[in-house]
């Protein structure tokens, strides 16, 4: 029996049938019919953000912390263009979000109508796929396809542009089970011959390292579980990219800390000196590799990735396994047991001794102060005071983000939401709101820089309206700290526009929003202040005044190899040459 509905009803029905419970959005003329339907039901909760960029980041936070796709609903023209940054962010970090945009009626498309923008044209390069639906009969099917595309293979953002007349017109509803099966079915099982080569390499290796990434999170909890089993079975050391933190617990004995530009000394040195690199769900990004032609010169490289285009893109690998991390690790472990495999115990002992020697360098050590709060210290205290709690962390972008990755420990996947690939300042606050909406009873903290935080601070209004008790932990150095660090390193200490002038009084700002404001500048008061933040039942803006000129170490300067890391300020002068200076 055909079910005839209006386009707007089809949208809401399709979302319900896809299991959507929350939509982040902002209304406008071109989506009013859909908003009208949203109003007349109770299964889907609509969260009114304060800016469409906020909706996209909130949906990313929701998606990253639940493993389910996030949904965004915005109007045509400016609503759609405001969502572009969030879609690009989701594309770079492989986060599944579905963005529904209103569009001017089909008969006005191309006429420069009020609030018309070529939304599918603008968003083609920043979505995994997008659709303009011109026929109400195609709407349900397209929405189901969109969920399929966003969540299968390498996840990512998709967009559906829906003209207003299509929302008003009647059409046939198709349920998800009845929708067309898409030919888009990325392969999830890895090639068993290649997996066998990988297992043989694991048996042979004397200086192995596991380099895991965000693909493990995307693959689901089972993948993290299998990753832990692999580490336990092999006793291999493991490091992770920024995006993969938590898949292996920070308290695990084989954990080496994050790798890459601001990774630990031991992780980067082990990447450089290993004889076997198992890259699992990571993509050899330039923040990880540093100088490509000096990257891990002597290693046999195995790469597990669901996206064939990640293979051999930056780094040539010996064994490319195309498949879903969970499926591939399942096969690796099965084969491992079936063969009664063993690792090269003698070789591994010597390797661990070498790693321990690198660990002794204590690359995350910093000089603490009794007078001023060091940002690293603030994070160490935050970590200590929140240990064991059901905790989710989001971040903005800058030094504070790197310090958060270095000094906070993640025990589980989906607990760490950060903008890695795009590096979007303004991500953290809306993302924290999205996370909190998905996990109302959890502790959600946005570790922020004062400059980034201002970029989407309007979302405090959203937090207040929906009683999302997010804690905004702002490491306020009154600087665009990461920019300042690069200027110190590269541009003769000429600090061009890299300080935060005319900052608001964050405590008064909190009061203006109706939430709690806390300011802290004395290390002696810090614990109590953090505790006050944690104990407060509602959103908090915490203005943590920290050392203004602290630099983030270790650091692999642009254009350098892993073993050319800088460990402290003393090493910084002239560390980057002219060629390195052109890199970002």
């Amino acid at each position: 029996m055909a079910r005839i509905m209006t386009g707007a009803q089809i949208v809401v029905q399709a979302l319900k049938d896809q299991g959507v419970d929350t939509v982040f959005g902002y209304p406008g003329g071109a989506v009013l019919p859909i908003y009208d339907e949203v109003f007349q039901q109770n299964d889907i909760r609509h969260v009114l953000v304060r800016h469409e960029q906020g909706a996209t980041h909130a949906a990313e936070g929701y998606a990253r912390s639940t493993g389910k796709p996030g949904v965004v609903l915005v109007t045509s023209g400016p609503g759609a263009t405001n969502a572009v940054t969030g879609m690009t962010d989701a594309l770079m970090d492989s986060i599944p979000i579905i963005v529904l945009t209103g569009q001017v009626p089909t008969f006005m498309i191309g006429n420069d109508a009020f609030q018309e923008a070529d939304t599918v044209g603008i968003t083609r390069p920043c979505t995994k796929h997008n659709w303009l639906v011109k026929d109400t009969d195609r709407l349900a099917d397209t929405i189901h396809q969109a969920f399929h595309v966003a969540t299968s293979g390498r996840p990512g953002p998709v967009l559906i542009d829906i003209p207003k007349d299509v929302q008003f017109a009647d059409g046939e509803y198709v349920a998800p089970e009845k929708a067309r099966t898409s030919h888009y079915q990325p392969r999830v099982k890895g090639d068993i011959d290649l997996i066998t080569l990988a297992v043989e390499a694991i048996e042979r290796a004397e200086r192995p390292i596991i380099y895991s990434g965000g693909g493990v999170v995307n693959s689901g909890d089972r993948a993290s579980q299998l990753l832990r089993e692999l580490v336990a079975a092999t006793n291999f050391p493991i490091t992770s990219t920024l995006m993969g933190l938590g898949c292996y617990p920070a308290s695990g004995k084989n954990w080496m800390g994050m790798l890459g530009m601001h990774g630990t000394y031991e992780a980067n040195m082990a990447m450089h000196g290993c004889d076997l690199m198992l890259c699992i769900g990571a993509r050899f990004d330039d923040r990880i590799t540093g100088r490509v032609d000096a990257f891990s010169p002597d290693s046999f490289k195995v790469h597990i990735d669901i996206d064939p285009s990640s293979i051999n893109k930056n780094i040539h690998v010996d064994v490319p396994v195309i498949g879903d991390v969970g499926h591939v690790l399942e096969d690796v472990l099965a084969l491992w047991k079936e063969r009664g495999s063993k690792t090269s115990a003698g070789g591994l002992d010597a390797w661990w001794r070498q790693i321990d020697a690198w660990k002794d360098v204590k690359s995350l050590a910093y000089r603490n102060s009794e007078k001023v709060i060091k940002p690293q210290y603030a994070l160490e205290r935050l970590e200590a005071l929140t240990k064991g709690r059901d905790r989710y962390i989001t971040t903005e972008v800058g030094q504070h983000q790197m310090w958060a990755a270095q000094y906070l420990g993640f025990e589980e996947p989906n607990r760490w939401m950060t903008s890695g690939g795009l590096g979007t300042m303004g991500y953290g606050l809306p993302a924290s709101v999205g996370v909190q909406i998905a996990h109302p009873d959890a502790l959600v903290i946005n570790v922020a820089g004062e400059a980034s935080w201002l970029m989407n601070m309007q979302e405090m209004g959203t937090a207040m309206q929906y009683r999302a008790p997010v804690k905004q932990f702002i490491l306020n150095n009154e600087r665009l700290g990461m920019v300042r660090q690069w200027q110190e390193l590269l541009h003769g200490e000429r600090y061009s526009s890299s300080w935060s002038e005319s900052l608001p009084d964050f405590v008064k700002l909190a009061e203006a929003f109706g939430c709690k404001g806390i300011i802290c500048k004395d290390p002696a008061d810090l614990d109590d202040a953090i505790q006050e933040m944690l104990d407060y039942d509602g959103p908090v803006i915490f203005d943590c005044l920290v050392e203004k000129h602290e630099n983030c170490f270790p650091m692999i300067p642009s254009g350098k190899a892993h073993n050319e890391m800088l460990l402290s300020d003393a090493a910084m002068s002239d560390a980057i040459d002219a060629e390195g200076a052109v890199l970002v």
Partner: protein
Amino acid sequence: MNALHLKKGSSKHSAYDLKNPLGDHLETHTLTVLVDNEAGVLARVIGLFSGRGYNIDSLTVAEVDHEGHLSRITVVTTGTPAVIEQIKAQLGRMVPVHSVHDLTVEGASVERELALVKVTGTGEKRVEAMRTSEVFRAAVVDSTLESFVFEITGTPEKIDAFVRLMVPLGLEEVARTGIAAISRGT
């Protein structure tokens, strides 16, 4: 000196320097891509090439399966072996793409292009143009007392050669379709 006792500025290379063991020489490949014939699919493919800095030497597209709404894109591109591999992988992961074949490496194939060539002139030049067209088995599809339009089909090289010969004989305009290609045998 830094903590590792490495000389300052010891690096001369860029982190974005994609040195690939597959080699740095340029190769030209003909790819055929089967895609859903949906709105914007060509823009998507072209956007991929421009957005990632790949070359397009030739590109043709037309529907080949009306029932199945499938179009076939033939694209000729030039790049290092690593870039060619990337192009194939990037095309292959696009949602509307059904298959990608590299005719240059997947056995023998035939390539054809069609061109319409307008030549104007009178007297000896006109006669010479006509004679040359016969050698190339070009057909005359339009003629006036002072002009011909030739239709020529063949490999791109054959068309290049014909067009070159027409230059001194009064070449006015050329319209080329770009390459259509298909594998030989079964």
